[in-house]
Every structure is written in structure tokens, then in C-alpha cells.
């Protein structure tokens, strides 16, 4: 992959850092996200995932 990019390296200064920067941004973002998500409190997770199933918003409980 870097071979393709290097063809342009002499035309755009330091172009090879672009994909590296992008990967780093994503990687850090992703690791941070994983860490924070798995730190979430189990009870909260349960509460949140049950929001759509709150029976009060279905007064006419039809099943088809």
C-alpha cells in the first residue's frame, strides 16, 4: 500500500503520513471506545436496552 503513496511523496510533502495519521486517529479512538464501553455499568446497560420495550407506549397491544 505504501508503494502507491510514495509515488506521490515527491509531489506532496510528507504524504505518507496521511494514512498513518488516519490509522492512528482511528486506532486511538477505537481503543478508547472499547475501554469505555466495557467499563459501563451492567445495570445501566440493561436499563438502556429496555427503553423501547417500555409497555406504557403501547396501549393497544395488537399482535398481527
Amino acid at each position, binding site marked *: 500500500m505504501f508503494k502507491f503513496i510514495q509515488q506521490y511523496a515527491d509531489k*506532496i510533502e510528507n504524504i505518507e503520513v496521511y*494514512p498513518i495519521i488516519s490509522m492512528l486517529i482511528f486506532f486511538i479512538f477505537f481503543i478508547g471506545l*472499547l475501554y469505555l*464501553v466495557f467499563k459501563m455499568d451492567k445495570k445501566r*446497560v440493561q436499563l*438502556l*436496552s429496555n427503553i*423501547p420495550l417500555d409497555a406504557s407506549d403501547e396501549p393497544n397491544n*395488537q399482535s*398481527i
Partner: protein
Amino acid sequence: MQVEKFYYDNRIVKNFAFATILWGVVGMIVGLYAALQLVFPQLNVTQYGSFGRLRPLHTNAVIFAFVGNGIFMGVYYSLQRLLKARMYSDVLSKIHFWGWQLIIVAAAITLPLGLTNGAEYAELIWPIDLAITIIWVVFGWNMFATIIKRREKHLYVAIWFYIATLVTVAVLHIVRSVELPYSWVHSYSWYAGVQDALVQWWYGHNAVAFFLTTPYLGLMYYFMPKAANRPVYSYRLSIIHFWTLIFLYIWAGPHHLLYTALPNWAQSLGIVFSIMLIFPSWGGMINGLLTLRGAWDRVRDDVVLKFMVVAVTAYGMATFEGPMLSLKNVSAIAHYTDWIVAHVHVGALGWNGMLTFGILYWLIPRIFNVPLYSKKLAANHFWLGTLGIIFYAVPLYWAGFTQSSMWKNFTESGQLKYAFLETVTYLKPFYAMRSLGGALYLTGALLMVYNIYKTVKAGKLVADEAAEAAPLQKVEPAHTGEHWHRKIERKPVQMMVLALVVILIGGAIEIIPTFLVKSNVPTISSVKPYTPLELQGRDIYVREGCYTCHSQMIRPFRSETERYGEYSKAGEFVYDHPFQWGSKRTGPDLAREGAGNLKKSDGWHFRHFREPTSISEGSIMPAYDFMLTQELDTSSTPAKINAMRTLGVPYDEGFELLANGHLLEQANGIVNNLKTDSIRISPTKEVIALIAYVQRMGTDITRQKN
């Protein structure tokens, strides 16, 4: 705490539901007709009904009218319930509804009239672009105001998907629609050539991502748990799904431009991020399917769940195929062929279509307070739909792979084995089978129309559905060490800003360097602006939607350079507003149509436009005989030259006044050429301009060689 009584607005949900049904059927009928035109070209009746104008009508109808109204139906239903609040303003809801329908009607009128920007999925002309912006703001305003007055503290994951959709579609639409109007209905794209291509596919791919995918994922996260009556499999996974999906999607656009004149570094970025996309996409699919854990037995009897299972499975298939297609070696085979058409239809028919149907069958009986008229009809719809997808996709996969192999086939002596036309006539049976698939799918949809009509007639709309909930406490006790996401979940504005930042990173890193760095588009000194006649011809090319079937981008493969001439360079397109690289070769590439071995006489083109089959037997190109009688509108020439100059095309000051003189001179030259072929025609007919443009294509490079 005092419980408040309030009412959900079901009327707006009903309106959008009926609109999605109506436009869905219209979009499918136009699609089926366009598919049949590829089998029976005589179905191209009049200029208003030719394939090049109907295909944009089909894609716009399905994306913005069918899926668009489907999104709004689902959002207006689920948002109110997830927030325990009626929509903020009934007036805004109504403006949103009627505004969107007016936009659709305007599109349905302007596209057959040939009023187009010439960019796929962004064809609508600038006044409609403006209207879309206004209506989108109305939608956003209504949504955010509802979120702010909500009674539920937390924002469920579906709402994040809606917020990301709102903000990203706004950014995409604005950046793609930067154009310079030169009349009340015409404009030129602000960008040219390679830049226009990058913006286009950054937009185009993310229209798939943020119009066809993220809002529907929001709907999946609401309606699937509802229909299965159990919470989503993993809420944690849904958070990861959301953030990684919106982060990665925005980078993936350049995979539409592999092996083109787009700088390689941008292509590579597109590939890497497209491959990574498989993970969040499959995370989402697995999350959807596993929501049915322990309820799989119900899928046998519950038609709503059946539709949803097929929808989520189709999502999984399409999002596996997408990353595979972004590999350069796979793209080399699949690009420009019907494989891509099959791929997008697995998404549109499978994911969007089936999920919409599932939601409709679940929702209509509820808001009309009546059981569904016929479960059996719905089950038949399910089977017709599923079979329709298979009958649609399989022949086109086969056709795409076969045609690509034929294009790349050489004889032992090193000649191309097949003429382009041979590969087209070979595909006709596949096109016929595909039409059958489309017809099955449409039949299923018509069954649904009947079924829902009967259901609605038997019931009565619960326009205002009573509900009650405690109001949100205004002052939140701030406790330290609160989880970060807990904070964001409660703060929709911060959520929106964060989503905006995430999507802007990808867009900015891709687009800005291409614009700033001159060396991204090496200039070629022999590339000159179009003559006034060629410019007029090019605008006819755009008007007729020639780009829906012809590419103007020769990839650096021997099989292409042998067939079409030297591969395309970025510098050749610097005056192309808009770019016309195309994405599909139903007909051959035209980038060098006026140069080298491909050059034909003016008389050849004249006869070919009048009746393609008289020159190329078995051709499926529509006849453009109306251009032989239709007068070229030369009054627009000065405005066009001025607009182009503003965009940076180096026409001399004052040239706009001389332009029509040049135009007539060049036209007379073509008329004289045609005379030698015993064709007599006035120089101001449209066909003359189109011939001038076609004869110009690819000649810049040849000039350089000489």
C-alpha cells in the same frame, strides 16, 4: 412525581407510511420499466422516457422518496415513544411532510425533462437542492426540539443513529451541491474533474451510508426489539457499532474510483477504511439477528420477523460484499459491470425494502387499532419479495462477471476477442431474467398495498394516542465520576457535535489535500477548454444522462488501453464541470471516442444517434432522433461561458460575445462534413453540438503526441 398525560402524533406517521408505499411502488415501476428498456430498446419512447432520464428518476425515487419517507415514518413513530413526548410541533411536522412530497414531485417532473446536475444521486437541480436544505433543517429543528422537551432522560441508541443521519446528510448535501447557477434551472458543479469525482463519491458512498444505512439501523434497533419483544442482544455492541460505523464510513468513498485518475494515496485510504468497515457492519448485523435469540420459533409464524430477518441478512451480505469490492483486484473485475447493480439491489431490495415492509406490517395495525387484514397475503408478499431478490441479483452477478471476463479476453494472437457490442447482446437474457426478479418483487409490493388498504379500511386511525409519563427533572444532581457516555446520552447537542467532528475528520483528510495540492492534478498543456459548440454538446450529454451507461475513464489495463486507447490522466479533466467519468458500462467507454482508432466520421455519429441499430445491430442504445429536429438553445451560450470563466476555465474576457459566432462556424464545418455523406441538416440542431462534443473526446492527448 406528577405524571403528565400527553398524546403521540400518529397522523404524521400515517402520512409518511402512505407516502413510502406510494413512492415505493412508483420507484419500482420506473425501475422495472428501465430494466425492460435494456431488453427491448424500443421501449425508449420520446426523449422524456429514455433510459438516460428514467434511470435517475428510478434511483432518486427509490432512495429519497421510498426510503426517505420510510425513514421519516419510522423516526416519527419511534422518536416520540423513545422520548415519551409528542413531536415538538405539528406545524413543523406538516411542513416537513408536504415539503418533502413537493420535492419528490418536482424531481419527478424535472428529471424526465432532462433537468439534471449530471452527478449520480445528486441529479436534482439547484432550486430543488435549496428546498431540500430548508426541509432538512425543518426536520432537524423538529427532531431536536422534541429531544429537548423529552420525558425520558436517556437517549436510546436508535436516536443517535437519527442524529448522525441528520448532521451527516446535511454536510454531504451542502458540500455536494456547491454549484454555480447560470439560469433558473441550470448550474455547473463548482468542482471540476478529479476533485468533482472525489466529492461525488465521497457524497455518493455516504448517501448509501447515511441515508440508506444509519437511519435504517436506528429503525432496526427500535423495531426489531419491539417486534421480537425482547431487548437488543448487546447494548454495548450497539455503542461500538455506532461510533465505529460513522467514523469509518466517511472515508470509504474513493473505493468507487479505484484505478481511475484519482491520486493513489486517496484510493489507498478508501480501500483500507472500506475493509475495516466490515467489522462494525457485521457487529450490527449480528446484534440484530441475535436479538431474536430464544425467539427463533416465532420467526416461523410472525411475518414481521421474517421480513426483518431477511433485511438484516441482506445488510450483512451487502456489507460483506462492499469491502470485498473495494479490493483493487476485485474492483478491476466488478467495476463498470452489472455486478455493482446486483450489489446495490441486495442493499435496496433486501435491506431497505424488506425492513420497510416489516415495519409497515407491524406499525399500520397498531396506529389503526385493528389486526392486519390478511397474514397469508403478507406471507405471500414475503416469499415473492425474497424470490424477487434472488431472481434479480443472481442473473446480474452472473452477467457482471461474464461481461468483465469477455472484456478482458484476448485471442492467442493478442487481439481482443470480443467486440463491445457482442458482450452487450450476450447479456440480454440475463437482463430479461433480472426484469422477472423485479416484477416478482413489485408484485409482492402490490399485494402489500391491497393488504394495507383493506386493513386501513377496517380500522380507524388513532390520530392522537394517549400516553403518560413523568416529566424530566430540570436540575440533574451532578455526581462525580459519572460515566462519559452517560453524560453524552443525556446531551443531544453534544452528541451531534461529537458525531459531526467524527465524520468531518475523514472527509477533511481526504478532500482537503486534493484541493490544496496542485500536483495532485498534473496539468497537461495541450488540454484546452471546450469550444462553445462542444460545451453545448457536453451539456446535452449531461442532460440525456449518457453517463448512466457510458464511462469516460479508461483504466490502466491492457484490456482497456487496447480497446479504448491510452489510459485517462487526471489532467485531462480540469475543465469538466461536472465530471462525467460514469460508473457503469452498459455501452463502451467514450473517453477517447474522437481520437485514435475509435474516431468515426460525423456521418457515422449522425446515423448512430438517429438510429443506433442501423449501424450497430443489436445495440440497446435509445434512438436520439429528436435531436435532429430540436433546435440548439444558443441564447444560453454567453451565460455558460461566463459561468465557466467564474469557475476558472480560461476563456478570454469578452469571449462570451463572440462565442455564438465560433459556435456557428464550427457547426457549419460539421454540416459540410455531413453533406459529403449526403446528409442535409441545419447547423443549429442539437445533434450537431453533440457530434462536436463526441468528436472532441480524447483528442487533447493525441494533440500532445503530435
